[in-house]
């Protein structure tokens, strides 16, 4: 059967894509001939996959990630690979080794990260659907900054096979789109058990979004409106929560004390895992080769020094330190204990409420270069990392604007209750007319 293709020649003025496929193969199915953008840390057979890193330049995977297989089976056309912070390490997509992506809402601002390319491609209308990945907010942050919808599924609900690992125990691939219904559709296609991923769960996702919200108990942790959260953002999000209350939801304020340690637990865990995951990039198998005239240890160190960007090198060093003997107990082990506290907090709260809601990001999209020191950048992840630490589902849905810039409402749910966070987001999206 001669393959069908669709032509894809976007006006990529925001530099959302690292590469596009001008004639993209497609097929029959639920996503027949629908163009889908794929973040560049998801393996695509025959299409260069770099994680926006120099060290993977020229690497063409010989296999498809499970989610890509599923997209193809549904007939979708993979039309391009989207820009990102190198290996997912960042909140602005400025850490791409190639170029920054601009926010289509305001090109002087970042699109958020690390799935900034996917968010910008969707927000600019170049594709209706995109895949992102979320390790500590990397789907929800750019969704919020660009004014689109993004879902971080429950850990284990979507296969990670083929996702080039940054922090294995935290990250999930998830759908990004302009509407909740489209996010739901893409989720239906990519979710489901995969025997190749031992952390994947046998819990398929078949769901029709339901806007009925009467009786749903929404918890609002005080910590989500604490210090560092722009009061204008807080106000827009409170308005959104009030709308849900008017539609019949019960709003209950609550506390999440483990938030105090969440960011530290997150950064110790993700950098530790990253330091190990990225060890394979030594110039022997992919990317520009190491200098074979030099002794092995000199050659691979040089390759890594040159091939990784600054933020990646910083996180590798942090993680190497956290795992080193004598410090493991002080850092890695402590981080896991803190992570258990976060999980316990969620479990406790979810006995009293059905979902938790708050802002996705403490602020609106930054200007380029606005966050120059890494620590203040890390602080902006504070509201998104708890869901990753606990492995629970979380969605960001546009809920208003501050000075013309989008604000995201974040809804977090119980483990494996992705359907419910989608429903709450859907109810909000349907508006206050009910």
């Amino acid at each position: 059967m001669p393959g069908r293709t669709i032509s894809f020649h976007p006006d990529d003025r925001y530099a959302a894509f690292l590469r596009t496929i001008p004639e993209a193969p497609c097929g029959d199915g639920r996503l027949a001939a629908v163009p889908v953008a794929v973040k560049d840390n998801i393996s695509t057979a025959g299409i260069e996959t770099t994680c926006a890193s120099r060290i993977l330049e020229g690497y063409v995977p010989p296999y498809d990630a499970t989610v890509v297989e599923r997209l193809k089976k549904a007939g979708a056309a993979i039309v391009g690979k989207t820009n990102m912070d190198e290996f997912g390490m960042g909140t602005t997509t400025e850490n791409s080794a190639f170029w920054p992506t601009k926010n289509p809402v305001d090109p002087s601002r970042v699109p958020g990260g690390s799935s900034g390319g996917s968010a910008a491609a969707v927000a600019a209308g170049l594709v209706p659907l995109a895949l992102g990945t979320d390790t500590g907010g990397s789907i929800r942050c750019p969704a919020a900054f660009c004014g689109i919808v993004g879902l971080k599924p429950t850990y284990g609900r979507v296969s990670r096979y083929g996702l080039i690992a940054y922090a294995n125990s935290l990250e999930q691939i998830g759908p990004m789109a302009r509407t909740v219904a489209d996010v739901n559709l893409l989720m239906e296609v990519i979710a489901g058990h995969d025997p190749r991923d031992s952390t994947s769960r046998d819990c398929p996702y078949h769901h029709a979004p339901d806007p009925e919200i009467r009786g749903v108990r929404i918890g609002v942790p005080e910590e989500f409106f604490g210090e560092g959260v722009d009061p204008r953002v807080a106000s827009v999000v409170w308005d959104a929560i009030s709308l849900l209350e008017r539609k019949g939801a019960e709003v209950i304020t609550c506390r999440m004390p483990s938030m105090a340690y969440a960011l530290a637990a997150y950064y110790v865990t993700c950098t530790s895992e990253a330091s190990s995951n990225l060890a394979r990039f030594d110039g022997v198998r992919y990317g520009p080769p190491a200098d074979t005239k030099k002794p092995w240890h000199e050659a691979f160190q040089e390759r890594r020094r040159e091939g990784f960007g600054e933020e990646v090198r910083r996180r590798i060093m942090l993680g190497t330190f956290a795992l080193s003997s004598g410090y493991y107990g002080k850092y890695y082990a402590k981080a896991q204990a803190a992570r258990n506290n976060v999980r316990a907090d969620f479990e406790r709260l979810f006995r009293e409420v059905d979902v938790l809601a708050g802002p996705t990001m403490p602020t609106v999209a930054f200007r380029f270069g606005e966050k120059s020191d890494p620590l203040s950048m890390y602080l902006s992840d504070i509201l998104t990392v708890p869901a990753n630490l606990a492995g629970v589902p979380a969605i960001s849905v546009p809920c208003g604007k501050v000075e013309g810039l989008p604000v995201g409402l974040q809804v977090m749910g119980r483990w494996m209750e992705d359907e419910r966070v989608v429903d709450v987001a859907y109810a909000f999206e349907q508006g206050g007319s009910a």
Partner: protein
Amino acid sequence: MTVIVGLEIHCQLDTATKLFCGCSTDYRDDPPNSHVCPVCLGLPGSLPKVNKKAVEYALKVAKALNCEVPEESEFSRKNYFYPDLDKGYQITQYDKPLAVCGYLDIEGDEGEKRVRITRVHMEEDPGRLVHKGGADRPKYTLVDYNRAGIPLIEIVTEPDLRSPKEARRFLNKLRATLEYLGVFDSEKEGSLRVDANISLAGSERVEVKNITSYKGVEKALTFEVTRQKNAIRRGQKIVRETRHFVEARGVTTSSRSKEMEQDYRYFPEPDLRPLRVRDWAEEIEIPELPDSRKQRFIDDYGLSPTHAATLTGDWQIAEFYDSLPADLKVSTATATWVADTLLGELNYRDMSIRGVPLDHFKELLIIRQSGDITEKAAVEVLRSLLDQIRESGTCELPRQCIGRLGLFAIAATEEGADDPVTAAAREAIAENPQAVADFGTGKKEALNFLVGQVMRKTRGCAKPGDVNRVLTRLLSGDE
């Protein structure tokens, strides 16, 4: 000076597929990098999936070594850079091994001995480096990942061994145990690697790495004992170090590289869930092991403990012996033949019981038992068959061989004067009048001499009983 030895043994588990992917483990005769996939190449994004068979095999080992199996066991990452390590870490086990606190009883230097097993854990084999252009200063190095991901078990003993010989005996017993379990093939090249810790009481401990054969363990340790004793005698201090065994020269050499304390930064493997192993282990059944088989050979076949130990010390030999006809198995002569003659001849040729057609030897034993050939001829046939196998890999059928060599037993008829035995006896009598005379004066040795002469004339094919009978008859003047 007391010698204190502890061993760390790595064995490849004989599964059909690798530990974390579906690639075949049967790579030895195939081109480099032909048994690889995204998982065992460590390609970005690939994920490991535990081979249940490998865990089952490892649990069998844990049970056979009388270990405690915890509720849960976990894989960890061992991080270090080396070109044969395609992920930059090895998936192994660290603080939650598969099994701990076991033991294996062996025949020690001073009788029965219990060697404690510290732990048994699973890990993946790394790839292999092939240095081209001289071992010391290679021009370049090639990497072959066919071996990457082969399941290994690491078995660690307490420092309970007291001599190189005991270490060797422990390894032999361990090998037999693993082969009885059907989880290990000792014949496969590189399937066993041993690191040995050795110290003389009161001195520092030295680690000897890179021992890849059973004999090598005894050799390396013997060398170390001598080296360390000499050093102490000369008043030198033994330094704590890692040494490498150079099999070809039978010596250990100090590692040239600086002794850096490697920090492997172990942490739990986030891509795999913990294994619930205790319940799993309880469901697994293990077959008869060397000790119980030895007892059965003593009880059921009436063998001596020595014969029983030899015949059960190797799974293939034990299987061979068990497969013999019932009337043969209970005979000491059969046990002697298999344990001493067959194994002795194999040993002499440095051949293994593998790869020899055991059915042939079973047939030879049956022919020998029937009296169609003499004991002496049977040995000659055995030697011929083994030489053929060594030359060409195959051999004749035993009957063909006997026929070709003309070794079928010559029968002496009761009264016949012209059978070959009687003819040979007449010749011997005629040629040796002195012996005949000595026999007449009652010298028993004279008869033995004449028997020898007849045997030589019949090229060993006459049955000793016949020769005795015919000679006695002729000499006593019945004719």
